[in-house]
């Protein structure tokens, strides 16, 4: 018996290529333009109410994918659907109406708040934009949401400027601003990586709480797999613009199939002095996204690489109904 939860986000064959800036001479000499293939044919879907994580190292394309899904960037090709509706080419007023339902929390709490806007105004601004509340009514809603994120008493914070707050507090303000419109979907782009370790759980717990309270769905973007394990329902591992493995949290962590996933998991530090570390058998470094390796992008570093790996790009093979791997060496 299968329970179908509705998909709130469906990304199909998303591509984002950034043209490389060339000098005049290079433009004359080169035969064709070169691109940074930041996101290259990425397909996934997110069910309502789940926390779906895009994980990978820097340069893998996870942040760009996140931006594409909320339409802060235009895809070079591909399709994005929100609640069944194709939003890839939305413009103008329709796009703005969509923004009410999709929000984003940024990585850097020191840069995501307007330094010249008071906290109360920053948080209340979305209400103004959509004409939802003004004046006293607006301030009442702002106070309510400030309490929800744990910045109490609200009156103390409303008149402050961001520079009066710590990083953790600023991130809570950013969270408050994102949820004041009660969105349906939220992208969290490394929301805790720039916050002190002892404060991270507060932010994470707040986010989990809002999932319950508002029925929020999350797309979580992170390089920290330990946090990903704590918070996610499903995880997709990205490498050089492609998804290499995707599955439930348990499947990925107890049965990683892709050699890259396996290496990643081995590399994660474990806070236990008595645990013996195993060596990460990965050679070399991440290749440039401009000259991607042929065939499977990972073959240049893979300990299990064979000749065929350099020739053909692997398809996503199901290991189980929910677990997929893009690797020809995997035995199903």
């Amino acid at each position, binding site marked *: 018996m299968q329970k179908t939860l509705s998909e709130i986000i469906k990304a199909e064959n998303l591509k984002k290529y950034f043209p490389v800036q060339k000098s005049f001479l290079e433009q004359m000499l080169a035969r064709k333009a070169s691109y940074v293939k930041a996101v290259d044919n990425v397909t996934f879907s997110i069910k309502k109410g789940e926390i779906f994580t895009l994980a990978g190292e820097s340069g893998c394309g996870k942040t760009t994918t996140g931006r594409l899904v*909320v339409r*802060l960037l235009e895809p070079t090709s591909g399709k994005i659907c929100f609640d069944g509706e194709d939003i890839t080419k939305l413009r103008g007023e329709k796009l*703005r*109406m969509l*923004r*009410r339902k999709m*929000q*984003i929390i*940024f990585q*850097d709490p020191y*840069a*995501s*708040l*307007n*330094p*010249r*806007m008071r906290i109360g105004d920053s948080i209340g*601004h*979305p209400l103004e*934009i*959509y004409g939802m509340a003004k004046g006293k009514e607006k301030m009442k809603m702002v106070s309510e949401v400030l309490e929800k994120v744990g910045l109490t008493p609200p009156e103390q914070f409303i008149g402050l400027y961001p520079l009066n707050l710590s990083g953790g507090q600023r991130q809570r303000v*950013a969270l408050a*601003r*994102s949820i004041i*419109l009660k969105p349906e979907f939220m992208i969290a782009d490394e929301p805790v990586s720039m916050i002190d370790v002892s404060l991270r759980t507060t932010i994470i717990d707040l986010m989990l709480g809002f999932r319950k309270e508002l029925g929020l769905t999350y797309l979580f973007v992170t390089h920290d797999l330990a946090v990903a394990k704590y918070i996610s329902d499903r995880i997709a591992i990205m490498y050089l613009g492609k998804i290499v493995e995707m599955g439930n949290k348990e499947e990925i962590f107890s049965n990683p199939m892709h050699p890259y996933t396996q290496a990643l998991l081995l590399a994660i530090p474990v806070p236990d002095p008595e645990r013996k570390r195993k060596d990460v058998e990965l050679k070399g470094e991440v290749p440039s996204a401009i000259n991607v390796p042929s065939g499977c992008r990972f073959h240049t570093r893979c300990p299990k690489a064979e000749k065929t790996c350099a020739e053909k790009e692997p398809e996503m093979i199901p290991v189980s109904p929910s677990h997929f791997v893009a690797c020809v060496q995997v035995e199903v």
Partner: protein
Amino acid sequence: MMEKKEMSETKVKRSILARLLPQLRSLSKRGPSGWMVIVGIVIVAVLVIMTAIAPWIAPRDPNRANVGPLRSPPSLQFPMGTTALGQDMFSRVLLGGSVMLQVSAISVFVCFLVGVPMGLFSSYVGGNLDKAISLVIDAVYAFPGLVIAIAIAAVLGPGVINMALSIAVVYIPSYFRIVRSQVLSIKELTYVEAARSIGAKWYTILLRYVLPNVVPSIVTVLTVNFADAVLTAAGLTFIGLGVSVDIPDWGYDLTKGRELLSSGGWWVITFPGIMIILLALGFTFIGEGLSELLNPKLED
């Protein structure tokens, strides 16, 4: 009649002071740059007040000829001497700032009103429009300021507004360029992206997210602009492109004073000259001090 006017003016000045004093006090705590700003403000304020109340305290009609002996050096009766036409220099100096202050104020006002929105809009929109506008602006910027001012003033003719306009054209590029360079870096910042993500329209983003963060750099250009405008106005008058001769003006006296200098008369050029320098200096102090204070410094 005159006393009543004086009284209400003093009351206005007092209430302005009441609001300014706490600001000045906080400025004085900010170290040497804070003091620079205060000194600048004081100088400019004194000169402005002096010019404002001059009509009531000037001992004689500045334009009236033959109130005293011709070309006489400073004395008890005429503390700053007299001109070739026998006019009282002291009265002329008291009133002569009016034209200069008006011209620089109007030109800065026009400059600001044209240069800032143009810079904001052009750089935020970007693309070919931005490239085109920047090209034109850079061309104007490349010209020596005084040359443009002279050219335009010659075409427009004398008068306060015309002088102001010709000076304004010279300085619009400065505002444009500095606003543009600020906007180009600010619009890539995360909080601008955040504003887009909550659905703000482009003009809201410009007005509430970009502009307030550009203002500190504009303020410093503004004050230096004032200083420069003062000097350019003096220059224009000096070469005869200023206002008509029946308005007392420091720049005009500079010209006339130069003629007198050859025959040994130092007082007609010196006193207005000092005033001009003081005014320009005052604005420069404010500008320099503010740029020190407003530029973000790394905290320890």
